[in-house]
């Protein structure tokens, strides 16, 4: 009889885990799955660029300048220096993806940590961190990015620094709000009452509750980062020529819009597709994680 009372004898299906629930919701969201596939393909194409094309992204050709798509085996035509557009778009994807993800990842690490500390400790720590963030928040993001990278001068590092600085305040603010909300809940107090250290409370109880909201917000910033990074190199502040980069390609082809409008529009189209895909995936993720905007 004692076996009836032991917990092992009562078969109870454990509820599906958090990640499992999200995965199941995403499985039925075909729109989001489609755009995840687009992004995976873009990443693969960027990584395997040398396998997909036999042209050199730097090889110029004096006679084959600004040719339409399909001209002598150039799938998408050639640019103003006779370089193969398809090849340069493939190699350019590397820069756009790196400049889209890297600043957000760095800002997530820095801003997220700062927000977590501000929200958890409150008081003077909160004041110091959040009021500093308010100052950076008081700049329009494009202005701050242009001012910083314009001062440092062009180059990838300067663009990376500028964009990271631009994204830190908003990520910090989201993390702080979420942490402060969790901090007020009973289980945090209970954990502290048992004598757990601040660090272990943050790691074991706070982080898991804060991360989803911060993560979803960060994912929505990637498309902004792609656009801003391309914008910086469009202004000549980001990636420097001859390294292929979509924004800088767009700027280089600006003079040729009267001659070959179709080819000139391609880098912008590429930026648009990648940025749109990131936005759609971020929206799908927000929906699956059930987080309000």
């Amino acid at each position: 009889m004692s076996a009836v009372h032991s917990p092992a004898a009562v078969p109870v299906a454990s509820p599906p885990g958090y990640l499992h629930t999200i995965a199941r919701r995403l499985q039925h969201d075909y729109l989001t799955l489609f755009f995840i596939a687009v992004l995976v393909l873009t990443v693969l194409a960027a990584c395997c660029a040398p396998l997909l094309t036999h042209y050199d992204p730097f090889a110029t050709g004096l006679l084959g300048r600004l040719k339409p798509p399909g001209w002598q085996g150039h799938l998408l035509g050639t640019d103003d220096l006779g370089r193969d557009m398809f090849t340069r778009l493939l190699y350019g994807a590397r820069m756009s993806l790196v400049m889209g993800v890297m600043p957000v990842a760095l800002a997530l690490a820095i801003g997220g940590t700062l927000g977590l500390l501000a929200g958890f400790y409150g008081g003077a720590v909160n004041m110091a961190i959040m009021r500093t963030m308010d100052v950076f928040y008081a700049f329009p993001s494009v202005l701050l990015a242009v001012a910083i990278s314009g001062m440092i001068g062009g180059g990838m590092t300067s663009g990376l620094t500028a964009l990271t600085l631009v994204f830190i305040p908003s990520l910090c603010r989201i993390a702080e709000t979420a942490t402060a909300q969790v901090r007020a809940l009973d289980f945090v107090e209970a954990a502290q009452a048992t004598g757990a250290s601040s660090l272990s409370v943050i790691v074991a109880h706070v982080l898991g509750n804060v991360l989803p909201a911060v993560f979803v917000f960060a994912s929505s910033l990637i498309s902004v980062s792609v656009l801003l990074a391309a914008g910086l190199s469009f202004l000549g502040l980001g990636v420097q020529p001859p390294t292929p980069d979509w924004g800088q390609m767009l700027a280089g082809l600006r003079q040729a819009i009267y001659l070959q409008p179709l080819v000139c529009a391609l880098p912008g189209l590429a930026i648009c597709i990648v940025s749109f895909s990131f936005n759609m995936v971020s929206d799908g993720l927000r929906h699956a994680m059930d987080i309000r905007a």
Partner: protein
Amino acid sequence: MWIYIAKRVLYTIPISLGVSLVCFCLVYLAPGDPAASLIPPDASAADIATIRQLYGFDQPVPVQFARWLWRASHGDFGTSLQTGRPVLVEVSGALANTASLAAGAAIIAFALALLAGTLAAWYRGRLIERVITTVSTLGISMPSYWLGIVLIIVFAVKLRWLPATGMGNGDAATFSWFDWNDVRFAVLPMLTMALLPLGVVMRSTRAALADTLAQDFMQVLRAKGLAPHALMRHALRNALPQVLAVMGLQLGYLTGGSILIETIFTWPGTGFLLSKAILTRDVPLLQGTVLILALTFVFINLAVDVLQTFADPRLQRQ
């Protein structure tokens, strides 16, 4: 409520100081001697020494900041290296041109966004909502500088309906809303600028309305037998403060972040000034423009926050 507004106004002071400090520090981001970045590269060593003394670079940094701030608060932002004219004169002329463009873009974007956002919330779950949300996502995903180029190709190069670049009669002329010769230059840049705020405000209008419609008091109104359009009126009034906040932020972004669009259309506003300053490494001009734009942004935010307390009775009671 008045205490809240007073607090909010007072809080602008430390924020403005912080913003000024960041702008001041910009000079130190430039590689090399800050004095060298303030004068043409072919200046002699004696000139550099004079400039160092004149600008106080031989003083401790806090003293430098205090002096710079003192001058800036009296309207002295230095002189442009390129034109030799005071930075304030350069920026204030450009700011008026940017403001014209931003105002036009804001009116187009906000009106369309409110309409489309309300439609999307009204037809929730229907095809029309799908179309509107997809278009608004496209709006926030499209590089505005690319849209500008595409619009130039279509309307200026192919159709020849509108001018491609510039701002009417020479770049020193003032812009007038009542002269078609001026306005036609503004059409394309205005439409390009309107795209991003259109997408953002549309998304937040739809989200705010959806939130409001899901609340209990809406259920009560529905049970009371209120007509759908009357329901929507209640929902809109409740969602208004939230949407207003987003609009304010977007208006600020339009004013402060117009650099890419003004560069494409060579519109002589603050963004164009900024890109010129970067290209020619005109540091005083860059620093002054950034400071004035950032302070404008701070005051737009203040105005919106104050406006919001009037729009939201819940804030008034606090």
